[in-house]
């Protein structure tokens, strides 16, 4: 359908549009008009992606001066989904306005691991080894050597790209990663380098957050993006963590050992070079005197990682004299590693600011701050000079240099924490030296400064006013949309009491109470006997989950649960969990029914959606507070309080509620999406997904927790669903499931959708 929003013609590939999608477009357009940043919250699965894409591409059509849309996603899977939607949109636009006007070039960019088509290299398992494998075949000196010596292997795809691909642009269209690989195979061009080159010409680029936020990567990939770009961060609820991770480094014993080995090897190579090709080293020295830490115009295949420091903080000066000579630099590194090793060998927890750390470093080991700043670039230059291709072997020394450069550059917003062992397992020595970034606004600041409009959007950004403070920016539009449901297909409940009317909670003083454990067990038991197919349970931590499952086993609750449903448990092992998930799905498919036990912040099952019958019910046992004794968390809380005036309690509660929600909401990803796809035809099939969520902890009943829930969930959280006990929850669940099993009335669902005529009518009304 085609409609007009305040003078802008918007092309939308479906016949109907939801009210909130329309409202979202209006707000988004205002932000684009104002050339400012915006923060938008819209319920999960309401078709955010297509709404964003269709408005922004229409906006691009109307304003050719806009450069491109940069769409950032978290995972490759999401990236492909975005591109699929875009393709559908593109086909529709072509149909509407002809292929000559609707010409767009859209492509996804990912690491070599996902794009490589070289028969041997693409078989490598880790990202680093694929990168290194590629480098072995494509580095400029390797190819130069191959011209004279035919025995040296190169990559035919890269050669093909180099010969023709770099001049001939990709024909317009929408390219997913898969399409790029297919196209690359057809033409014999390397898809990775093709994609990297083409992003300069593309109208829409879809890639990972890291490509903009992590200075190591963005320095290479996103350097040449124009100011007139629109940047979208989708599913951006943990964007602050991504920012922080981009600037944080952890050093452990094995990193330092590895670094020592690397340094030893570097020494060997340097001495070999001195005998054979001393000239090269001298040339490098001269270059460094001139202040060109990074070689001027590097060849595309030669640069693999840029400086970890944010662009404006990089010094454009000559490298200091004491590390200009290769052997001096290696000796410098050796001293640094030695010093770090000494620091790591401690019995107590140490917390320091970067300033005091560098001061003690320079007095104790004679490593001055100025030199530290250049470590990363100096190493980079050295590796290039020495023509090292096995970059994956030198990861450890890179990590150390990364650390040194960051420590040398920043004096605020960071802290250095040395812990001799993990708090949770004090008897196992596992020393770690953490340089942790405390300020999420640091990494994202260049993005805000550089681009015209930045859109941050997700299903759960509540409380929405916290984000501008965390990220330190001034959005022109902040809006949280509710959703119009065709029926109450969402049933959140807050369970505060067990079947014996005693309160349940995962609070520290209550969690090991057998009464609470039994009440939680009874709740699960009652629910598996009431809810069909899949049930997912989230616990606050692995240790808590292990404990409670043990007690349930002893009490015989687990055996009773097994009579109704099979039990699957997430472990910290990736393969094991994948297998468990697969079997869980199978058990749901064949009607046996299954329960999946997972951890709210668990990394393993993260990103897996429990949609449709795989997650008819999600139970959140307890409030997943972050581990509050963690030194890093405390440092961050302190910093937030001092710098942004955000109270610790506020942040912790926000974080806990948000993470429990995110776990729980994984079941609703497809609430609307499937429906939207069905709107293509004339008939609307309104059989949407449905599900229940139980927050089982008395603390959720507190207003300060409840208020942190997004508006669209609060509106579903009815008064009688608060402060429940187990038997009441069972009753509500039974009624809800029966109600949802009834076929829904197509007339009702039609009223939440707007057709083209409806929109025209609305436009005619002046005061909508």
């Amino acid at each position, binding site marked *: 359908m085609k409609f007009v929003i305040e003078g802008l013609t918007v092309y939308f590939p479906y016949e109907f549009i939801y009210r909130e999608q329309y409202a979202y477009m209006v707000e988004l357009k205002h932000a684009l008009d104002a050339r400012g940043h915006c923060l938008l919250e819209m319920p999960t699965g309401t078709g955010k992606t297509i709404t964003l894409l269709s408005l922004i591409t229409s906006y691009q059509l109307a304003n050719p001066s806009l450069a491109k849309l940069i769409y950032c996603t978290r995972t490759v899977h999401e990236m492909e989904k975005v591109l699929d939607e875009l393709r559908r949109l593109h086909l529709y636009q072509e149909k509407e306005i002809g292929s000559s006007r609707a010409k767009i070039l859209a492509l996804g960019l990912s690491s070599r691991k996902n794009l490589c088509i070289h028969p041997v290299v693409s078989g490598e398992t880790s990202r680093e080894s694929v990168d290194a494998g590629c480098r072995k075949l494509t580095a400029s000196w390797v190819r130069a050597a191959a011209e004279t010596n035919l025995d040296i292997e190169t990559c035919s795809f890269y050669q093909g790209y180099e010969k023709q691909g770099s001049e001939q642009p990709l024909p317009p269209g929408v390219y997913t990663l898969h399409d790029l690989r297919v196209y690359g195979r057809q033409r014999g061009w390397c898809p990775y380098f093709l994609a990297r080159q083409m992003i300069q010409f593309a109208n829409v680029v879809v890639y990972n957050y890291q490509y903009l936020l992590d200075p190591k990567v963005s320095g290479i990939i996103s350097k040449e993006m124009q100011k007139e770009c629109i940047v979208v961060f989708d599913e951006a609820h943990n964007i602050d963590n991504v920012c922080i991770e981009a600037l944080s480094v952890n050093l452990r014993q094995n990193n330092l050992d590895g670094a020592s080995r690397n340094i030893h090897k570097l020494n060997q190579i340097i001495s070999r070079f001195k005998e054979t090709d001393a000239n090269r080293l001298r040339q490098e020295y001269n270059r460094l005197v001139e202040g060109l830490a990074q070689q001027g115009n590097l060849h595309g295949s030669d640069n693999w990682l840029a400086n970890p420091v944010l662009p404006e903080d990089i010094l454009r000066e000559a490298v200091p004299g004491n590390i200009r000579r290769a052997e001096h630099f290696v000796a410098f590194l050796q001293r640094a590693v030695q010093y770090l090793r000494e620091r790591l060998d401690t019995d107590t927890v140490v917390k320091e600011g970067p300033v005091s750390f560098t001061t003690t470093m320079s007095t104790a080991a004679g490593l001055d701050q100025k030199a530290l700043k250049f470590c990363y670039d100096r190493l980079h230059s050295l590796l290039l000079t020495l023509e090292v291709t096995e970059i994956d072997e030198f990861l450890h020394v890179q990590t150390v240099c990364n650390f040194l450069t960051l420590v040398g550059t920043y004096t605020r917003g960071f802290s250095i924490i040395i812990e001799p062992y993990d708090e*949770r397992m004090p008897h196992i020595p596992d020393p770690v030296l953490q340089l942790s970034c405390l300020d999420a606004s640091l990494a994202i600041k260049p993005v805000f400064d550089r681009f015209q409009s930045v859109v941050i959007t997700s299903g759960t950004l509540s409380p929405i006013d916290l984000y501008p403070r965390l990220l330190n920016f001034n959005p022109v539009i902040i809006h949280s949309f509710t959703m119009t449901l065709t029926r109450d297909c969402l049933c959140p409940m807050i369970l505060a009491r067990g079947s014996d009317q005693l309160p349940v909670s995962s*609070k*520290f003083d209550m969690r090991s109470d057998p009464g609470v454990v039994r009440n939680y067990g009874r709740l699960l038991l009652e629910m598996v*006997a*009431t*809810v*069909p*197919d899949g049930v997912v349970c989230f616990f*606050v*931590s692995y*240790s*808590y989950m292990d*404990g409670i499952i043990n007690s349930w086993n002893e009490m015989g609750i687990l055996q009773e649960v097994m009579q*109704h*449903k099979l039990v699957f448990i997430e472990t910290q092992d990736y393969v094991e969990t994948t297998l468990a998930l697969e079997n869980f799905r199978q058990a*749901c*498919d*064949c*009607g*046996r*029914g299954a329960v999946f036990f997972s951890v709210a912040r668990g990394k393993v099952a993260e990103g897996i959606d429990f949609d*449709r*019958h795989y997650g*008819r019910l999600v139970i959140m046992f307890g409030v997943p*507070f972050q*581990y*509050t*004794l963690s030194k890093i968390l405390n440092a961050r809380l302190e910093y937030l309080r001092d710098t942004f005036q955000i109270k*610790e*309690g506020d942040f*912790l*509660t926000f974080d806990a509620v948000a993470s429990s929600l995110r776990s729980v909401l994984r079941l609703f990803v497809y609430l609307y999406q499937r429906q939207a796809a069905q709107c293509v035809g004339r008939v609307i099939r309104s059989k949407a997904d449905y599900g229940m969520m139980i927050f089982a902890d*008395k*603390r959720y*009943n*507190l*207003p*300060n927790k409840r208020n942190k829930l997004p508006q669209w969930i609060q509106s579903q959280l009815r*008064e*009688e669903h*608060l*402060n*429940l006990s187990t038997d*009441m929850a069972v009753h509500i669940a*039974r009624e809800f*499931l*029966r*109600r*949802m*099993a*009834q*076929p829904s009335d197509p007339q009702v669902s039609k009223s939440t959708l707007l057709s083209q005529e409806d929109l025209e009518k609305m436009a005619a009304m002046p005061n909508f």
Partner: protein
Amino acid sequence: MEKRSGQGGPAFQEDEEMEEEDKAPDMEAWERAYADDRSWESLIEDESGLLKAGDDVQQQRQHRRRLIQASGPRIQRGIIRYLCLILDFSRAAGEIDFRPSRMAVVAKAVEDFVREYFDQNPLSQLGIIVMKNGIASVVTELSGSPEAHIRALKSNLESFGEASLQNGLELAHTYVQHIPSYGHREVVIVFSALSTCDPGNILETVKKCKAARMKCSVVGLTAEIYICKHISQETGGSYAVAMNEGHLKEILLEHVPPPAAMPDASSASLVRMGFPQRGSEGAVAICACHKELRIGGGYICPRCRARVCELPTECSLCGLALVSSAHLARSYHHLFPIPTFDELLVDASLRGKSSFAGSCFGCRIQLSGGGSLRLRCPRCKRDFCFDCDVYIHESLHNCPGCETLQEEAVT
């Protein structure tokens, strides 16, 4: 284990707030559920002092909506049906959220269903399978006598163990395999459990059923279950979940009218049938179905002269389908249904124009007073009240208005 002792701040605050919250006087949860509802306010007292729940007309519309949905265009229907009823008497059937228990409610609904089924489908047969304790067992073979089914079912009421849909379907599959090709193979599963414990892969069994052109429908008692939906979708059946006892009966009875013929089964073929004579009162013969000496009654197969007790059936000697002409006639109306009547919204301009302005053509009740819908037959343009509409469509299967028109045309 996590500790939060030293970290006083947030945890401490919470306790205080918690206490405040507890002190606040609040309604009980069940009270709150009804507080917004105010269902008692819609009760109306009529002139004789009886309480009526809400709006009559609205309920009548509700009832009609179902009728309208059921009636499609005139389609080919399979009126010779072989229906296999699979009942779930597993542990879950013993639950008491339906009173006195799910099993008792199901048994009662099935009893009604069986009677109604044979009443409307006299040419069809039915068999009952019960799932309990992980296995499926035959209660009655495919046959035509409603009383026998009901008797067998009543003697079989106990519930324990798990339910296995796969076993049930496999058994139904063997059952249905050797029925003639013109017969419609149907399975209706009444399922109270939430899971099925199968010995093998049920998805294979579903494929097998689909290949055997078995139409499997499921009536659920608790919630929507994925596998049930899958079974019904794959085999072209329907799936519904009962809200309460009344609704259960209603959706079960939806399986009574013959279903639309499956497209691939629609090759027209002649079916050989016999119309047996009733045996004379005093005649003594060995009954072919019970294998024993019987005196009087019974029917005599026109081809092989064997004596059978009940109609409709299949002659156990020569395999001829035996029916009576009355049965055929009763099945006939499904093929030529009378059209659904249109609701007329009462407005002033219409009054006076129509010849039967104020009254129902069927029972002469005044229609202008409200309390009933005004419904008009699209063919004869006569108006009827709601009760007559129900009677005409559900029992009579003839429109009195159209019949008088024909009479007038003849005279």
